[in-house]
């Protein structure tokens, strides 16, 4: 409930209010906002505050935006250890610079009586929120390392789901409180943009780069009328040149395309039968993959039992991966008692896939932030970043004719005839109706 409010309602409300409020303020009350600089009243501390703060926050904001706007590219880049390390370092350094600047700005605002004369309550609220936000950001970066990597599996898809109006909290459910608080504060800050000095971020004068040095404004209709004639003449000429250039360009492109096609048709390289076959077969393979995926999904939506493996195929030291009802990875081991162990392979820390290799201590490793999980109980080792055990999945053992020999309920209770000798030839299934309501 709380999550729904904080992570679905709040972002939408904040975003809508921010957009509408900002537009109204910019259009209807432009005279009310500016950078509200107080350099005039107190320049010295301002330099040491404002410059680091702004540079730091620009770097960090750009980083966050890149990760959210280009998750694919971002993820593939963060796959390289050096890039990941560099990104983390730059981000953290920028955060520290921000923090230093912000502290100077806060001290200055509280300390100088002249600056106080132009300080509003909203200014103080904003400064407080920003301080909390930067501290949280740094804490997350310190404590949950490699955020640049795990964000692509968590916050990015969540934000994407918000943008596509299909909010999905699943991605961020397991995130630590600090990360969630960082998000909530971000929403609050966005909400406050139109009601505070923060609105000055939309005044960044990018047009300055392009505009001519002088700016002459004529109010006089006679001037425009008089120059209308000249202008029209020139305009007509400009239009003509533009049109001619456009047509030439278009024709050129078309011509090149046509020539290319014609040339290829007659003289172009011929595909050998083998090459053609290869192309077709890759296409086919791709189609097949899509079909399989789809089938898997459908199967999981309709049937109550899904085959994992023959019982005899399970090993004790190497798990067999499969896909559970939620389309998440899970794995199956053979237990000491000859019965199967089925557990989720989605790390309870930040959702990486846990390895299926059992070490000598009887544990499997999540490689992302090094959590070891006990295969028998699913419990993480003491001190691991993951705090919750990997959930055990309910299963059923069926003979060839589909008769349930034994099963394990979500509660962990095992019923049925586990001692049956023919059990070795049976298959292991995961079961839906018994799967806990989790």
């Amino acid at each position, binding site marked *: 409930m709380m999550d729904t409010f904080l992570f679905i309602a709040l972002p939408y409300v904040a975003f809508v209010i921010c957009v509408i409020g900002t537009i109204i303020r910019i259009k209807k009350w432009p005279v009310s906002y500016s950078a509200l600089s107080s350099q005039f009243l107190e320049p010295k501390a301002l330099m040491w505050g404002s410059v680091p703060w702004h540079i730091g926050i620009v770097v960090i904001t750009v980083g966050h935006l890149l990760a959210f706007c280009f998750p694919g590219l971002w993820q593939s880049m963060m796959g390289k250890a050096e890039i990941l390390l560099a990104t983390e370092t730059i981000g953290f350094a920028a955060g520290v610079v921000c923090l230093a600047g912000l502290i100077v700005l806060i001290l200055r605002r509280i300390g100088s009586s002249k600056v106080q004369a132009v300080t509003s309550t909203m200014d103080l609220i904003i400064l407080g929120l920003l301080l909390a936000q930067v501290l949280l950001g740094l804490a997350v970066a310190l404590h949950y390392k490699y955020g640049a990597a795990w964000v692509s599996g968590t916050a990015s898809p969540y934000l994407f789901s918000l943008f596509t109006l299909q909010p999905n909290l699943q991605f961020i459910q397991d995130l630590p409180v600090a990360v969630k608080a960082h998000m909530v504060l971000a929403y609050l800050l966005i909400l406050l943009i139109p009601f505070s000095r923060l609105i000055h971020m939309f*005044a960044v004068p990018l047009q300055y780069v392009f505009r001519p040095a002088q700016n002459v404004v004529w109010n006089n209709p006679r001037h425009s009328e008089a120059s209308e004639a000249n202008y029209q003449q020139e305009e007509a000429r400009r239009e003509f040149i533009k049109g001619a250039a456009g047509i030439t360009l278009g024709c050129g492109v078309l011509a090149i395309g046509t020539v290319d096609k014609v040339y290829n048709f007659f003289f172009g390289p011929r595909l050998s039968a083998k090459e053609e076959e290869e192309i077709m077969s890759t296409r086919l393979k791709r189609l097949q993959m899509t079909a399989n995926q789809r089938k898997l999904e459908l199967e999981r939506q309709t049937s109550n039992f899904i085959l994992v493996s023959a019982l005899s195929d399970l090993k004790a030291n190497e798990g067999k991966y499969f896909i559970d009802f939620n389309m998440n990875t899970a794995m199956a081991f053979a237990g000491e008692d000859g019965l199967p162990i089925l557990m989720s392979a989605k790390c309870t820390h930040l959702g990486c896939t846990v390895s299926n290799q059992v070490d000598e201590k009887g544990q499997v490793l999540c490689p992302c932030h090094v959590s070891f999980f006990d295969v028998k109980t699913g419990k993480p080792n003491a001190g691991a970043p993951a705090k919750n055990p990997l959930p055990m999945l309910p299963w059923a053992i069926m003979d060839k004719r589909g008769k349930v020999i034994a099963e394990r309920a979500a509660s962990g209770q095992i019923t049925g005839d586990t001692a049956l000798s023919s059990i070795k030839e049976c298959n292991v299934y995961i079961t839906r109706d018994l799967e806990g309501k989790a």
Partner: protein
Amino acid sequence: MDIRAQVSMVFHLDKCIGCHTCSLACKNVWTDRPGAEYMWWNNVETKPGTGFPTLWEDQSHYKGGWKLNGKNLELLSQNKLDAFIKLFYNPNQPGLEDYYEPWTYQYENLFTAPEGDDQPTAIPVSQITGEPVDIVAGPNWDDDLSGSPLYAENDVNLDELTDEEREQLFEIERISMMYLPRICNHCANPSCVASCPSGALYKRGEDGIVLVNQDMCKGWRACVTACPYKKIYYNWKTGKSEKCILCYPKLETGQVPNCFQSCVGRIRYLGVLLYDADRIAACMSVPNHALIESQRSAICDPYDPKIIALARKNGISEEFIDAAQKSPIYKYVMKWKLALPLHIEYRTMPMLFYVPPLLPVMGKMDNGHYANTIDGFFSGLESARLPIKYLANLFSAGNVEIIEYVMKKLIAVRYYRRSLDMGDIDLVQINRMMREGNVSPEEAEEIYRLTALATVDQRFVIPPLQREEAISETCNPELCRGSCGLGVPVNVERGP
């Protein structure tokens, strides 16, 4: 050719008595409000002196105006890229201490103080914080202190003077000074406009008045630094910049700006100049010593039929052309070449011109008497009380010849009038003087009349600014009648 009209100005410094009436006339109407207390859109400085804000002419510190980079003009204060870093902190922006902390007095205390042994006093309190202040500086802190080593010696215009010249200047018996009233020059090549990141500053096409659009100003303060005359002020309360508006609401209704109207010495002239806007950049890109001539070359003759035709083509009305022909400014600047812009080396092409003062120059003492004979008068210019070099640094980018030309002409006119009134000077000598001063008797008469006897209508030739045409699309002039300058007044407030 792109002919534009400019409402421009001449200040005749010989007549300024340094009374500051102009400053107060401006203050009372425009800047007597919170955030603007420290602003003096019009101020009067004592020269030699440090001015307001302190040492504003020191561009190595304040970085105002343009610099010549090869053939291109570039802002001294920023380029298109570092302008963005300077949004966060502008290293050259003058701060409060360069102006002064505005204060008032706690007058209530005089009435409400409890009974005691002492007289109650009204202590000074800051108009920013409301706390008691120690007054360390104010506007015109160096008023009339030309001899003071604290102020006058720091005047940057004295930098190139020889030790001897300096000594002369500060010798106690010879100490001299002049007054320099300053408002925004409404430049034709304004560096303030060029520096504004938001594009809020603009020059009005019809009359050349430079204004800050308060809606668009986002308080980046680039203009405060970029204006070499420091005539843009940052309002600490509203977070926007403000400047002299040449009283456009008054001009638009045919009245004279406050500082002109109130001027006790009647030193101020206002009128129209026509100039060629296409040539601005080229004119301002010549070496320092040629700048005065090159600015003059961009100003057009309002009687030339070709110019008139081009002006009409640009939508300049008949009334404007007529005003340009009657313009006292055209006479002082172009016809007589007596009026010079202040610090043309900043290359903003200022449109306010000054007739340099003659009195201090002439006040040379000879045996305890003012030198009054005509012999060798022009040669006396070199040892004048206020060194010619000093005036040249102010009014001709260091070009001494231009100042000498002006001085000779002014002296010739003065002796011509003296010979008419007193008849005590030999005609041959007068003729020689007029020749050397480049002035004919008719012209001398004309200069004398416009300088000494001119009526209000001759000093201020204001064409109708036809604002009603400009706003006709947004508002019916009949309905807008009475509102400020026919516009819609908006209250500039600090937002949340």
